[in-house]
């Protein structure tokens, strides 16, 4: 018989990565009780552990120039970045960097001192990726944060229009967890669709989905980070050829930097198509029958070689020689894992809309941080290496402070038992059903509707509409009948439900934006449309319907429209 635990806390933080740990610690410093929950294990698993560890920090004493940094971000973001947030993140970043230093986090130090990378005008350092997540956990434990692992939160509890708590369960024991919280920081990461080419299956849009259902506004859903295809296929071929196991290949295939051919402009390393021609956009090459793609090892610039040399050196487990990967040898290397799939959103580029610089949302008492918080720092694209973790730490700290302040000032709301019972019923529905659909099957069906490259990467109004009809049906008819045979499947049911909602958000936002920009490419509208689409797309639930609206970008942030299009946008889309 599963137990029901009731936990009262001033601040509840959902998600234990970079953003969540910073939020928890900074909230705790304000004196109240802080509880940090994660559906995996804080400091061991999850996205932070998986990241490369790059961290941008802005430091005027290193002659960093704020205007120059911002200008680079503006161009890469294709002018959809929120410049106020950009400046906040950059200005706060050095303090957060110092927090990490004081935690004892180690950085890549090839010659005994921290190596500072340059990416355009930006500079960033690289944390040792196996060490910094456990260090964040230690920081949280030391400061007196209560950590609960393997708890997935399913619904946010609202009372009189304000956040009052949350309902979740333990994915091993199946015990229910009722949280009564003064404020909640949502730091449960980004969204992906468990696609086979990207090991980011824990990102199931939990944050956005929960917040959306509770009435928050969501933005940035149309911008997709094209797949960052893995080297898995290379490894596998190699392994079969050698008839021996390739050890320690994780970072090689997963984080090999050459494999980022994003949409416009994000090309880091030289990639060519099957005919030896240039690649603007990986999915487009496949669309035209010119896949597989290759990394042209002969075309590496000295800077790119240097970058890669350092990369392999600092990722302790990367042993590229063992799998025949030698970027200094020349030749070409197969790029695509064979399925072009949508991975995730850009850091700070999609999620819950923050209404102020304390990361508060439209829902009183709900704060958002990290990839769950759509500050639109990176606008329509990924504006620079190292911004993701930097953004997570800055918004984490700010959300933590904001939530603690809110919780200390607001009176504790009495929980209405009828409302609590309603939410418990929703969360527990999958385990209480006698018949229904398995989450594994629903996820596969959803993937087959949305994951193929021609739905969410090379988009077209007709195809988006067709997918929307099916996904809507899924959300309305199938998802309410998700069934879980055990506690593990119960988690999957929550995730599937969130991913299905996420997909509908992506499709509606993508249909609404009738232009192409950054991580959003419409075959039927292949050009940027200034100034009509110098705007963000917002999604909100109203009377059970998903309402889409346009939030214009302040005119002072527009690009200089008197400059020719080609100068405003150095990267062309296919078909332009």
């Amino acid at each position, binding site marked *: 018989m599963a137990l029901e635990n009731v936990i009262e806390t001033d601040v509840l933080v959902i998600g234990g990565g970079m953003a969540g740990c910073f939020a928890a610690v900074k909230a705790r410093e304000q004196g109240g009780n802080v509880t940090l929950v994660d559906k995996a*294990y804080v400091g*061991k*698993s999850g996205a932070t*552990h*998986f990241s490369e560890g790059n961290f941008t920090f802005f430091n005027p004493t290193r002659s960093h120039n704020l205007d120059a940094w911002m200008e680079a971000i503006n161009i890469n973001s294709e002018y959809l970045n929120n410049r106020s947030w950009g400046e906040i993140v950059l200005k706060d970043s050095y303090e957060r960097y110092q927090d990490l230093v004081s935690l004892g986090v180690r950085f890549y130090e090839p010659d005994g001192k921290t190596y500072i990378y340059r990416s355009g005008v930006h500079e960033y350092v690289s944390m040792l990726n196996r060490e910094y997540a456990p260090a964040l956990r230690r920081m949280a434990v030391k400061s007196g944060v209560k950590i609960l692992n393997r708890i997935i939160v399913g619904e946010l509890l609202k009372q009189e229009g304000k956040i009052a708590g949350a309902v979740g369960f333990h994915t*091993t024991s199946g015990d229910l967890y009722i949280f009564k919280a003064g404020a909640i920081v949502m730091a449960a990461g980004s969204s992906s669709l468990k696609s086979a080419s990207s090991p980011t299956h824990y990102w199931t849009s939990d944050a956005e989905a929960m917040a959306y259902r509770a009435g928050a506004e969501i933005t940035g859903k149309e911008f997709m980070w094209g797949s960052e295809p893995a080297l898995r296929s290379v490894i596998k071929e190699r392994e079969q050829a050698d008839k021996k196991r390739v050890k320690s290949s994780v970072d090689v295939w*997963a984080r090999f930097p050459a494999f980022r051919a994003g949409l416009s402009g994000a090309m880091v390393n030289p990639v060519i198509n099957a005919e030896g021609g240039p690649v603007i956009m990986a999915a487009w090459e496949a669309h035209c029958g010119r896949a597989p793609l290759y990394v042209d090892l002969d075309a590496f610039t000295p800077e790119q070689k240097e970058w890669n040399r350092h990369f392999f050196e600092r990722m302790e487990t990367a042993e590229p020689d063992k799998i025949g990967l030698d970027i200094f040898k020349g030749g070409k290397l197969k790029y695509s*894992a064979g399925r072009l799939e949508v991975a995730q959103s850009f850091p700070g580029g999609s999620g819950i809309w923050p209404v102020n610089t304390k990361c508060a949302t439209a829902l009183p008492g709900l704060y958002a941080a990290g990839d769950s918080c759509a500050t639109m720092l990176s606008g329509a694209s990924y504006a620079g290496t190292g911004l993701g973790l930097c953004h997570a730490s800055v918004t984490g700290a700010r959300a933590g402070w904001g939530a603690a302040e809110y919780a200390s000032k607001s009176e504790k709301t009495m929980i209405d038992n009828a409302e609590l019972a309603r939410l418990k019923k929703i969360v527990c529905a999958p385990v209480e059903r006698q018949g229904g659909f398995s989450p594994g*099957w629903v996820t596969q069906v959803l993937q087959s509707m949305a994951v193929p490259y021609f739905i969410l990467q090379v988009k077209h109004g007709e195809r988006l509409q067709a997918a929307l009809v099916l996904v809507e049906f899924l959300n309305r008819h199938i998802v309410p009948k998700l069934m879980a045979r055990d506690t593990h499947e119960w988690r999957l049911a929550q995730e599937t439900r969130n991913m299905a909602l996420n997909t509908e958000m992506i499709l509606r936002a993508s249909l609404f934006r009738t232009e192409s920009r950054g991580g959003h490419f419409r075959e039927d509208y292949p050009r940027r449309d200034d100034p009509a689409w110098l705007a963000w797309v917002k999604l909100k639930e109203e009377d059970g319907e998903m309402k889409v609206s346009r939030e214009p970008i302040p005119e002072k942030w527009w690009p200089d429209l008197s400059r020719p299009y080609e100068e405003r946008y150095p990267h062309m889309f296919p078909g332009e």
Partner: protein
Amino acid sequence: MSIKRINHKLCIGCGVCVDTCPMDVIRLDKKRKKAVIKYPEDCMLCLYCERECPVHAIYVSPEKTVPIMLSWG
């Protein structure tokens, strides 16, 4: 999807792999004090467990096959 085996001759039952798996694929068999692959279909091939296992008892294959899921039953 990809995790293939945990060598029980080597496994010391420390539970590091259980904590390390973001997808709840591995569970600890408390009676036998061994880690067991409980939900292989949810393995996403991140290889954390293989990397973190102190005694190198885990093998994750690069295979990406996903079993056919049933809608019910």
